[in-house]
């Protein structure tokens, strides 16, 4: 029987000693009974990596599946199921695989599983995870295979980290992943009660055996309670009903920090908030007007008032998380030249821009946003700044998420008169911060370039950078691309986001916050990053 999540003390108060005696017997079992109770903010909808498009599902199977490589907390590629990746030429990579690894269903992990995993993606909603670069794979022996790319692809190694390896049987139809994820990871799937809980148990014989971290995860059971309402999640944490709250709202962080029983861990993440300009519509077709608006975005005030002081002003797309590709000095330079809050400079630019376009102020327009509380509140601050000038009469419109996304990605939002408030999540590779938003071929409705920003030089730089394996060369290319994008101001960058976790100080030890979406729980047991978590008591 699973351990009860209500405390014994509480049960005693409720049902008296008689039934509590019966409960006490339930916490034993065969294992050591260590349990971590964490939360998910939505229900898990898919166990299959080729179908799961929501971050909740992806973080829920993160400890169950493993990829050929893992990306550690600083963005370095670490071997996991692969022991080495050798580039034979620009298009061919030889992958050597770890021997003696078994899936949770008992089958052995071999090269056939890897090839089958890749090819399963064809025609699925997550097709681009693999088919952006995959052409073919040749199995040389059980533990060696050559992967051929469709063109040189610099983020190849990082991309492998985003492809969870499944047994070949899932591709042939002999294994049904819709009943539960089956991987090689340190935890195996146990049970999922929709909208109630999702539980993982320690896998019997995980392959890891090295120094630094225990051979098996110290925590036997991880129970994720599904709690949609943020206030309820915080109450559950404060009441001790859960040990760890994933992603609490930024405005609650100050309260949580005042509570000695709770530790708040926050870390810069890979993503930014931005205000997208409709480039085809005057006066936003004018570059000076756009820079004028960008210089009226009160980033520091937004971070203080909306995000409880957490986060960092954004002046360019690539997150400072990627220290190989950007730097604080570069961001400050971009801020000084094109973005930083400066009402005086803004007035000069707006005067010149409105003159040039012939639009007579005040220009009546809207900022559209979805109903995410933080986003609405920063958009309000921007609206107030703009209305504080003589140039704009701005109102704010909120939409339900699906309605909003359809509007923004419809393909003609760049011709509307509305500025769009949106967030973007990037990954460990710099391309993820630029291509989908600023490459001309990614203009909506193909993907997400809602401004319909098009610049040949940027396109060329992004293409070249994507096929350049040398990090220093790539960095130079991305710096040029970023400089061009920022100076054209198709969007006003607002803030680099953070990941926040809060946990019971007495219950959880060793936990670290992973900076990217869906990797949040990897710190529970990540031998490739010398990281593991323990729970106090029992």
């Amino acid at each position: 029987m699973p351990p009860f999540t209500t405390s014994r003390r509480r049960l005693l108060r409720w049902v008296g000693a008689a039934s509590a005696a019966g409960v006490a017997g339930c916490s034993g079992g065969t294992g050591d009974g260590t349990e971590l109770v964490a939360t998910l903010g939505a229900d898990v909808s898919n166990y299959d990596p080729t179908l799961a498009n929501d971050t909740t599902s992806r973080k829920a199977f993160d400890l169950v599946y493993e990829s050929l490589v893992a990306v550690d907390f600083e963005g370095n590629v670490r071997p996991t199921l692969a022991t080495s990746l050798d580039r034979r030429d620009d298009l061919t990579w030889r992958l050597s695989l770890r021997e003696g690894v078994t899936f949770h269903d008992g089958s052995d992990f071999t090269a056939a599983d890897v090839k089958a995993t890749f090819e399963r993606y064809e025609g699925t909603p997550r097709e681009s995870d693999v088919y952006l670069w995959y052409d073919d794979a040749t199995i040389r022996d059980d533990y060696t295979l050559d992967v051929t790319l469709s063109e040189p692809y610099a983020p190849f190694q990082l991309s492998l980290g985003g492809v969870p390896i499944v047994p070949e049987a899932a591709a042939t139809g002999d294994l049904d992943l819709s009943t539960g994820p089956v991987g090689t990871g340190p935890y195996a799937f146990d049970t999922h009660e929709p909208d109630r809980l999702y539980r993982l148990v320690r896998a019997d014989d995980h392959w890891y055996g090295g120094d630094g971290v225990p051979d098996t995860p110290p925590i036997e059971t991880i129970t994720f309670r599904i709690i949609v309402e943020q206030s309820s999640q915080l109450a559950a944490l404060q009441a001790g009903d859960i040990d760890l709250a994933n992603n609490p709202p930024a405005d609650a962080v100050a309260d949580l920090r005042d509570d000695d029983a709770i530790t708040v861990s926050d870390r810069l993440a890979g993503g930014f908030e931005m205000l997208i300009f409709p480039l085809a519509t005057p006066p936003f077709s004018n570059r000076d007007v756009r820079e004028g608006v960008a210089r009226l975005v009160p980033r520091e005030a937004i971070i203080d008032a909306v995000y409880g002081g957490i986060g960092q002003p954004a002046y360019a797309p690539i997150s400072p998380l990627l220290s190989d590709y950007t730097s604080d000095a570069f961001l400050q330079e971009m801020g000084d030249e094109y973005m930083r809050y400066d009402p005086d400079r803004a007035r000069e630019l707006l005067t010149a821009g409105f003159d040039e376009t012939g639009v007579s102020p005040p220009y009546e327009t809207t900022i559209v946003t979805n109903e995410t509380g933080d986003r609405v509140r920063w958009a309000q601050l921007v609206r107030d700044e703009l209305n504080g000038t003589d140039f704009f009469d701005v109102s704010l419109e909120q939409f339900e998420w699906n309605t909003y996304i359809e509007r923004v990605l419809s393909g003609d939002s760049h011709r509307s008169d509305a500025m769009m408030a949106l967030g973007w999540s990037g990954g460990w590779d710099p391309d993820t911060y630029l291509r989908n938003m600023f490459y001309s071929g990614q203009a909506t409705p193909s993907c997400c370039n809602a401004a319909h920003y098009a610049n040949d030089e940027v396109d060329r730089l992004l293409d070249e950078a994507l096929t350049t394996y040398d990090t220093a060369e790539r960095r130079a290319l991305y710096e040029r691309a970023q400089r061009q994008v920022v100076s054209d101001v198709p969007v006003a960058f607002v803030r680099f986001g953070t990941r926040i976790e809060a946990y019971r100080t007495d219950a959880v030890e060793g936990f670290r916050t992973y900076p990217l979406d869906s990797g949040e729980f990897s710190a529970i047991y990540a031998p490739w990053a010398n990281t593991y978590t323990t729970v106090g008591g029992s």
Partner: protein
Amino acid sequence: MSLRRYVVRRTLLTLPILLGVSVLTFGLVKLLPGTPVDYVLQFQEATPELRASLRAQYHLDEPLWKQYLLWLNDVLHLDFGDRVVSDRSVSAAIAERLPETLVLGGAAFLIALLVGVPAGVVAAVRRGTLLDEGSRVVALAGIATPNFWLGLLLILVFGVHLDLVSVIPPVAPILAPESLAFLVLPAVTLGTASAALFTRLTRSAVTDQLRQEYVRTARAKGLTERTVIVKHVLRNSLVSVVTVAAVQVAFLLDGAVVIERVFSWPGLGRLLVRAILQRDFPVVQAVVLLVAVAVVVANLLADVLYAWLDPRITY
């Protein structure tokens, strides 16, 4: 007309209502902006072929009338199809959550009746006293308080500060003692507004009845006040309470959408909200249809109860 024939006729009359409900359910869902395909693809780059094949999978390439007929045919066979967001069947998802919602709604309904009706009787019998005024104030507050806020307040007081109950449902069978203990707060939250409504309604019905001549007759022939109230007045007052009780079934299902979120209770309300946000059309249609059927059936039962409560009602 005999009661039995009435019931049969009344039941047959619900069929066109249900058909109308099915058209509305289907149509309203189609009016939502966005399709399942948008949800499935999110921010992924997708080829036109992939988009087209996904559209075909959800029959979105058929004309609307044909989509409706295909759907209706499945529904009549009690087949609600597969979910969009996962490959599980809609029926299984509903079967999982129906007991949770029934238990929560039933408990709330019970609390509403057991608190509301006696409170209304007491207020009517003692009308004009402090007790009557007090019940009026409490009832007004109960109706006016948003249940979302009330739920969070109860969680903070009883779950966090007093630490008497768990903030999230215990991991135990739904009828286990700790589950029932947990249910107290959500049921009270959900039942408060209905209890308040029943109080006011019972008070006014009982007050009306007390003015009737049969009450004077009953008292005159020496019946105890208790018998007068319980056997005569209350039974006659209940007719209007029953009507409203039937409507309250819909309100309780409505309220469950919010309460289930606040208390992390895995019922139909949670399923419905998420399905709407994810454009999981088959689930939305099935749940809305189910709720509509529940309301239609509740009204049918109310009509039958009238006849039983008041034999003077003929059809």
